[in-house]
């Protein structure tokens, strides 16, 4: 227990909350596996230069050699070591996943909050805007943006955020719409708290739970989209990415299965990890889902 003289402070209480959440997470089957996968990927991404046996762009080996002890995942058509490429590709995918999830959270949080709290014309305009961006499939929006403006890392990130924010914005909007008419908000208004204070300090902590789950899912969508774009040969040519490896593999996989198999498996691993993590989050944030039996079980 903390001594009462030291006030917890927001940072410390957030840290305590985080530690507690991590503990809960490890208790759920899906969450524990998801956490483990993400942890491994994060370590691989951070320490890529130490883990990768070769420089990913170095064309030192013989081309298209099958997996062996020397080249764990084999080599590609230009003699690059696929294991090293996959290791470095983790960086791109995680950066896109994290960046897009964070960007979409900020954008959709802002839009959803404003629309849900103020209603009226603000609501009408912002929610129509969300609908507008939701009309076309995500991949088409990203492809279109990249086609017009090019595919540097930042542009790609912006394009993905632009394509995925509406789902989350609707979620935040729904939460604010529901919570704004609750008694605690009315009480805060009577207490003459500022609107910003009510939106951020009163409603936000109550609204955030389902949104956090969506953030994890957003990251997995972003990783899939980046991989898809790489597969089409349209991602940033200056970065190593899993999708791009699959693009190259397209021409060689009939004679060298390893060029396609390992990068694809890496994408799957990241997406499964994020989905399991989201499942775990869902479970610890909403205890009602635990132990609910089906109606026809007898």
């Amino acid at each position, binding site marked *: 227990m903390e001594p009462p003289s030291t006030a917890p402070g927001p940072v410390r209480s957030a840290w305590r909350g985080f530690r507690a959440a991590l503990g809960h997470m490890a208790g759920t089957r899906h969450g524990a596996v998801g956490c483990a996968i993400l942890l491994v990927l994060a370590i691989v991404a951070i320490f890529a230069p130490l883990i990768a046996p070769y420089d990913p762009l170095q064309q030192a080996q013989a081309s298209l050699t099958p997996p062996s002890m020397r080249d764990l995942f084999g080599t590609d058509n230009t003699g690059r070591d696929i294991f090293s490429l996959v290791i470095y590709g983790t960086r791109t995918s995680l950066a896109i996943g994290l960046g897009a999830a964070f960007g979409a959270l900020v954008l959709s949080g802002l839009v959803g909050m404003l629309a849900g709290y103020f209603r009226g014309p603000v609501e009408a305009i912002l929610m129509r805007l969300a609908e507008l961006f939701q009309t076309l*499939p995500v991949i088409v929006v990203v*492809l*279109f943006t990249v086609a017009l403006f090019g595919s540097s890392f930042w542009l790609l990130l912006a394009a993905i955020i632009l394509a995925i924010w509406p789902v989350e914005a609707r979620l935040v909007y729904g939460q604010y719409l529901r919570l704004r008419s609750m008694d605690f908000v009315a009480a805060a208004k009577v207490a003459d708290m500022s609107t910003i204070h009510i939106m951020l300090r009163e409603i936000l902590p109550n609204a955030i739970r389902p949104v956090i789950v969506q953030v994890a899912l957003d990251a997995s969508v972003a990783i899939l989209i980046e*991989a898809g774009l790489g597969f*089409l040969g349209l991602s940033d040519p200056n970065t190593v990415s899993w999708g791009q490896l*699959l693009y190259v593999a397209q021409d060689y996989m009939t004679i060298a299965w390893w060029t396609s*198999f390992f990068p694809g498996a890496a994408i*799957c691993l990241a997406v499964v990890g994020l989905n399991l993590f989201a499942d775990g989050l869902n479970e610890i944030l909403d205890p009602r889902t635990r132990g609910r039996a*089906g109606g026809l079980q007898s």
Partner: protein
Amino acid sequence: MLRFVLFRLLHAIPLLIAVILVILLMLQFIPGDPVQAMVGDFPVSPEFRAAITQQYHLDDPFPVRVYSYFVNLLHGDFGYSYQFQRPVWDLIAESAPRTILLTLVGFLIAVPFGVLVGTVSGTTRSSRVDHFWTSTALVAYAIPTFWLGQLLVLVLAVHLGWFPTQGMGPLVSRAHGLSWFLERAHYIALPALAFAVHEGTRFARIMRASVADTLGQGYIVTARAKGLSRGAIIRGHVLRNSSLPLVTVAGYAFGAALGGAVLLETVFTWPGLGLLLVQAVRMRDNMTVVGIVIFAAIAVVVINLLVDLLYAALDPRIRGRG
């Protein structure tokens, strides 16, 4: 019902116009020369430049350009592709039916699969069957369609030789109707399967949640109290009521597939809209890119509208809201 139709139309038309406006607005911000951005990467003579500038009102203010674009659209003119040397509409009209064919066959596999698996796992929640399917669905949903496509090609086409690796079969054929389809069934099998794995697991997920939701309703308790058998309850009450959300999701998925088959069609070199879009992007043929994206937007909005109307026809409770 009429009021509902009018209400939805009033909603869909401005949405469509807004989407097209945003697309045209984005064209404004392309860096570089607008004429070059229109025709793609090839040299243009001054005369040609002047003709294009005049034809597409490139020197006029944005509203004039938008107006002329809409007038053209209403005449069925989606612009001209200088890379393919054909009107964009011709390209779309040629490839869209192939995408629709692929999507339809994919749906023929995905929908029954989703309904069956979703119902079985939803009615036996928390049992071993359910756990198995939820875990399978989780993994199946995480596999990128294009990678699954590559694996299918690798195993079923290259190693076992059961299917062709790519394409749509002979482009010119005398066959008609069913025999035309049978000629292509071989080619369609793998892409349709890859599509169905992804969509089918999604449908199963939704069906499962919907079934679980239905089971909690009062009329199920009543039906059980009446002494109806488990099978009769599932067939008579659960299946019908749980299918409604699936109608919406599957319908929306159909609209999205028309534009979203980009990756799938690229893996199998299936010459549909998606592959056309990718080719156009690679050639920097922006006229075609914009044409396809606008066509996809129209398709999505129209199909979503039809889905909503169908939903209202199936479920009388919806009509009241309007």
